[in-house]
């Protein structure tokens, strides 16, 4: 029984181990030019060196700060707006097209516009990321409110709850599972935009800038190490939000 538990526990690791083995095998057999395709060991060494001798962690911190800052701005603006939007069918219908249009516009195409307005600095990166993340949060919150179960609101009304109490005590909570989905997609999206911005918009720090620098000087182990770090960061953010969600929306999906 104990042995079986152990194997169930490490089941998710099989895929990862298999992937690393395959990577190692391809590198070992030199299927691809070793200069372009370093071994897992070389990349691991680059991560190690980046953490303990270089400034990998500093770059991670900068990227995380930008991502979270844009996410927080997006949340503070778009959750309340989404609530209002979702509670009024009329308002939603009149703004639906505009929101849908900008949601479908690739946020990265807005960089030039924001560069003109805000200049080459932190604010442009954060603004574009917040814009993209905000739209995701906005329409998810609005959908959550619109699809809130009418029965629960009716139950509250019958029990004498005022309009405000129904909105805050029932509708808001009812929309939380969907709002969290929006927030989770929003933070992932903000990370994507921030990394792209760091690559191409005159950055001197951050993971995006680190990747592109490594590529330009052909330091492949360093490039792979940074890509891997960005992956860990994205995965970590998602996991972190799932944990928060489970804590605050314990009833979700039940």
């Amino acid at each position, binding site marked *: 029984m104990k042995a079986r538990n152990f194997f169930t526990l490490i089941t998710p690791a099989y895929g990862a181990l298999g992937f690393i083995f395959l990577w190692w095998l391809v590198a070992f057999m030199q299927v691809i030019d070793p200069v372009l395709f370093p071994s897992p060991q070389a990349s691991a060494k680059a991560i190690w060196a980046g953490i303990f001798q270089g400034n990998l962690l500093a770059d991670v911190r900068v990227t995380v700060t930008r991502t979270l800052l844009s996410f927080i701005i997006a949340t503070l603006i778009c959750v309340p707006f989404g609530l209002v939007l979702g509670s009024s069918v009329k308002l939603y219908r009149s703004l639906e097209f505009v929101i849908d249009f900008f949601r479908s516009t690739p946020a990265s195409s807005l960089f030039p516009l924001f560069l003109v307005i805000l200049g080459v600095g932190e604010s442009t990166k954060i603004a574009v990321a917040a814009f993209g993340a905000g739209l995701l949060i906005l329409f998810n919150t609005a959908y959550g409110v619109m699809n809130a*179960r009418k*029965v*629960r609101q*009716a*139950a*509250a*009304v*019958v*029990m*004498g*709850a005022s309009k405000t*109490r129904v909105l805050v005590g*029932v509708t808001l*909570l009812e929309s939380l599972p969907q709002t969290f989905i929006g927030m989770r997609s929003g933070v992932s999206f903000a990370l994507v935009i921030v990394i792209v911005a760091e690559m191409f918009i005159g950055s001197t720090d951050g993971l995006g800038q680190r990747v592109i620098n490594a590529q330009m000087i052909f330091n492949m182990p360093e490039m792979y190490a940074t890509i891997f770090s960005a992956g860990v960061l994205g995965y970590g953010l998602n996991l972190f939000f799932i944990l928060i969600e489970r804590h605050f929306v*314990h*009833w979700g999906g*039940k």
Partner: protein
Amino acid sequence: MSADAMLQEEAPTHITIRGLCKSFAGQSLYANFDLDFPKGRITSIFGPNGCGKSTLINMISGLMPIDAGEILFDGKPLSETVIGYVFQNYRDALFPWKRAIDNIKYPLQMAGRSAADCEARTQELIRSFDVRFDLNRYPYELSGGQQQLISIMRALASEPEVLFLDEPFSALDYEMTLFMRDKLQSVFESTGTTMIVVSHDLDEAVYLADDILMLTRRPTRIAELVRSSAPRPRSPGTLTSQSFINAKAHCLDIFQREVRTKDLSA
């Protein structure tokens, strides 16, 4: 005048409906509908599909607007009346973010009662319902029957003048249904609250009620108000008693007559 008729005369009217009109998409469901619900009795509503049983109690309880007409409770409007409502789908009606016990307290809090008062009333309910499971759990951690029991306790918490129940047991298994009918009956016997039950099960409608309101196809009218005079407390034995069988047979006759009638609006 027969003894039965005299008893019926004695029950005063609780809910008065006059000139009620309601149409959906231009189709009239209720037109100049008048109805009196007796006080301190259980009335079940039964009728063909689509005759608007749930619509009727939703309009009375204010969940659905009416096009025209007047509905009064002991002469007062709804805004001055405390009502309780038990929904068919307890999963959608309970608040999953609140523990079972806090669900029960919700209407008391909305009425602005003090914390101590809420607690006292909740404990009283727990005693009278003889609840033996953990009320500190969340609704989704409870069985269907337990959830509907919480719904009923929540609806009764603020001691409503009228309790509405919309097919309250249709999502429960048979064993649980029998248990819940029993609970509801004992609540009725101890409180005498006027109850209005929508049912899609004729056995249940007759078993629970003192009066069965038989409705016609739409535009909906009253086919007949049938008395179910089997003595209380009712038990599974009631289901085979002569008075139950007679009342049910009579209701079934009316129902079949109504179903056969050509749907005028179709």
